[in-house]
């Protein structure tokens, strides 16, 4: 009797361990990718939580962050850490400019108008990127510290896989600190409940919203730089896919909920890596996983995994 391939595989000694290692390795990759999605999702979820705007341009803000870092390193010969910090600061400024220039004028317009404006801003950034930086992908200069690979117990740990979740945790705690432990954060939470009343209480609502954009954009820049080091190449359209996926992560976790966005990101990252690892023949569909998950979650649990408020 001929044995099925699956049966043969199990017969070999020691394969069980290999399978476990394989599984753990994929888990690690999934968590690294997922925390990256989560990091980018922070900005989405903060902005949506406060002014109920899907900031379509968030992924493109992330792209701009990558270019700032790139030019910092290559044109101004800054050390990588200085370049990264400056890139985050510049991206924060870009976020504020975007808010002041495009979103403040449509703040009292119907929500669809704000959404269309956001789509316009997204295309503006992408095409400005194409005009100014050129469409040809540029190699991202990954610092040596991030390109090493550690091996522990048969598992490969590229430095990025270690650093990404750490950085994400750091930024997540910083954002949570701002939101729950500072006066600005209290104002943000107030605005998300009732913008008009908050304004009447003497809070400068536009300033607080700008700060939200600044924080979210800086987080996006950090995520973008990590993304650029992971796939060491940047181009003006690179923000589209991570932007969409981060948005899905935010919705998965319950949009407006920052911890939820992180969980949604992890879930999405692991699901995607597992699809590619376990069903390599379906690898071409990995970009569809996010949207499949999104549609399912919106149908069966429209407020996301951790959300409480109903979307209208």
């Amino acid at each position: 009797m001929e044995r099925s391939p699956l049966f043969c595989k199990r017969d070999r000694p020691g394969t069980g361990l290999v399978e476990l290692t394989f599984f753990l390795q994929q888990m690690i990759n999934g968590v690294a990718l997922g925390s990256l999605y989560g990091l980018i999702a922070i900005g989405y979820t903060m902005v949506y939580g406060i002014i109920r705007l899907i900031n379509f341009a968030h992924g493109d803000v992330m792209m701009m962050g990558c270019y700032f870092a790139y030019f910092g390193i290559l044109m101004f010969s800054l050390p990588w850490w200085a370049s990264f910090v400056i890139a985050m600061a510049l991206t924060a400024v870009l976020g504020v400019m975007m808010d002041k220039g495009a979103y403040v004028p449509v703040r009292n317009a119907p929500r669809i108008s704000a959404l269309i404006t956001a789509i316009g801003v997204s295309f503006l950034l992408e095409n400005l990127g194409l005009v100014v930086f050129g469409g040809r992908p540029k190699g991202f200069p990954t610092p040596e510290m991030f390109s090493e690979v550690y091996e522990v117990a048969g598992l490969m740990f590229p430095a990025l896989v270690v650093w990404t979740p750490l950085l994400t945790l750091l930024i997540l705690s910083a954002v949570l600190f701002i939101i729950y432990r500072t006066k600005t954060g209290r104002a943000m939470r107030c605005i998300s409940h009732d913008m008009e009343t908050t304004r009447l209480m003497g809070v400068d609502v536009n300033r607080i919203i700008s700060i939200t954009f600044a924080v979210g954009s800086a987080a996006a820049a950090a995520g973008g730089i990590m993304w650029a080091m992971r796939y060491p190449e940047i181009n003006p359209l690179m923000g589209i896919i991570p932007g969409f996926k981060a948005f899905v992560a935010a919705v998965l976790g319950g949009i407006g909920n920052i911890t939820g966005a992180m969980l949604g990101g992890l879930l999405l990252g692991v699901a995607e890596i597992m699809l590619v690892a376990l069903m390599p023949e379906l690898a071409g569909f990995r970009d569809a996983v996010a949207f499949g998950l999104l549609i399912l979650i919106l149908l069966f649990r429209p407020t996301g995994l951790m959300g409480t408020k109903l979307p209208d």
Partner: protein
Amino acid sequence: MDPNANRNLLLSVLATMLVLVLVQVAASHGTEYQIRILNNIAIFIVLAVSYNLVNGVTGQFSLAPNAFVALGAYTSALLTLTPAEKEISFIIEPCIWPLSVITTPFIVSLLAAGLVSAVLAFVMGFPVFRTRGDYLAIVTLGFGEVVRVIANNTQSITNGPLGLKGIAEYTTLWWSWGAAIVTVFLIARLIRSSYGMAMKAIKYDEAAAEAVGINTYWHKMLAFTTSGFFQGIGGGLLAHLITTISPTLFTFFLTFNLLIIIVMGGLGSTTGAIIAAVLFTWGGEWLRFVDEPMDLGFVEIPGIPGMRMVIFSCILIFIMIFARHGIMGTREFNWNWLCRKLGVGGRSR
């Protein structure tokens, strides 16, 4: 009942005949470039008017027209390609059985494209219309992307990233403008019927519409399916105009172009959608000069490819900030208004 109904009908028939005469003149005297632009305008009218039915008239912010256009384009292209052509095109994996032997006339393939897209719209409508507002936008955006990913990965049906080549160039001015006239006529009739009234009611206040007994779910489905049908036909026409299609043609970029058109024309106005489709296509050609090097006499500006899209993005943002109602708002062209303006009179109500 409008007392001028007969006169208006006559005027509409005359206007349609005038358009047909102009099409004949263009087809016999126009250069290849002019004919190409006129074809593009007609196809964009089909796409924009049907997109406007969902986004403008019914107020459901869908971002999925690229899915229907893609499906329509692939369906009609696969139906008109001959088995021999398919064998040459499908080099990685052969085309699957029924498609590999079928060849149909152009008109059949167009109708099939419309029907298949309408079926997709109908099926998509079930999950899509459980969501509202921003979420509906994102879910439809997701579907648009999924259709593109599927087109990229089903090698034996769509030929994957290689796309389909050598599609016969059947789309003439008669086909495209014929389709445009039929689409505008049917959709305008639909909007003026009781179904259209219900769709507008949904746009202005969904809860109130529900309360007066309108089945909002099925009216949204009707708008979405009708729109899908015409977008499928538009896709078929597009495929037989450009003769080469691949998944990269049907990205969100296509949706973005249509969105600019309907926003520019005024969300909810068929007339606006037509005017804006003409302006956008013609203006897009006219704006080509910004992509090319310019010599201003004292200074030479090097050509910046892609500048056009920057300008279009700015236009979209400016419209949203300064002129939210677009060219026409929700108003429509009508003969009574024109005659009054011209002082021709006619009986008043």
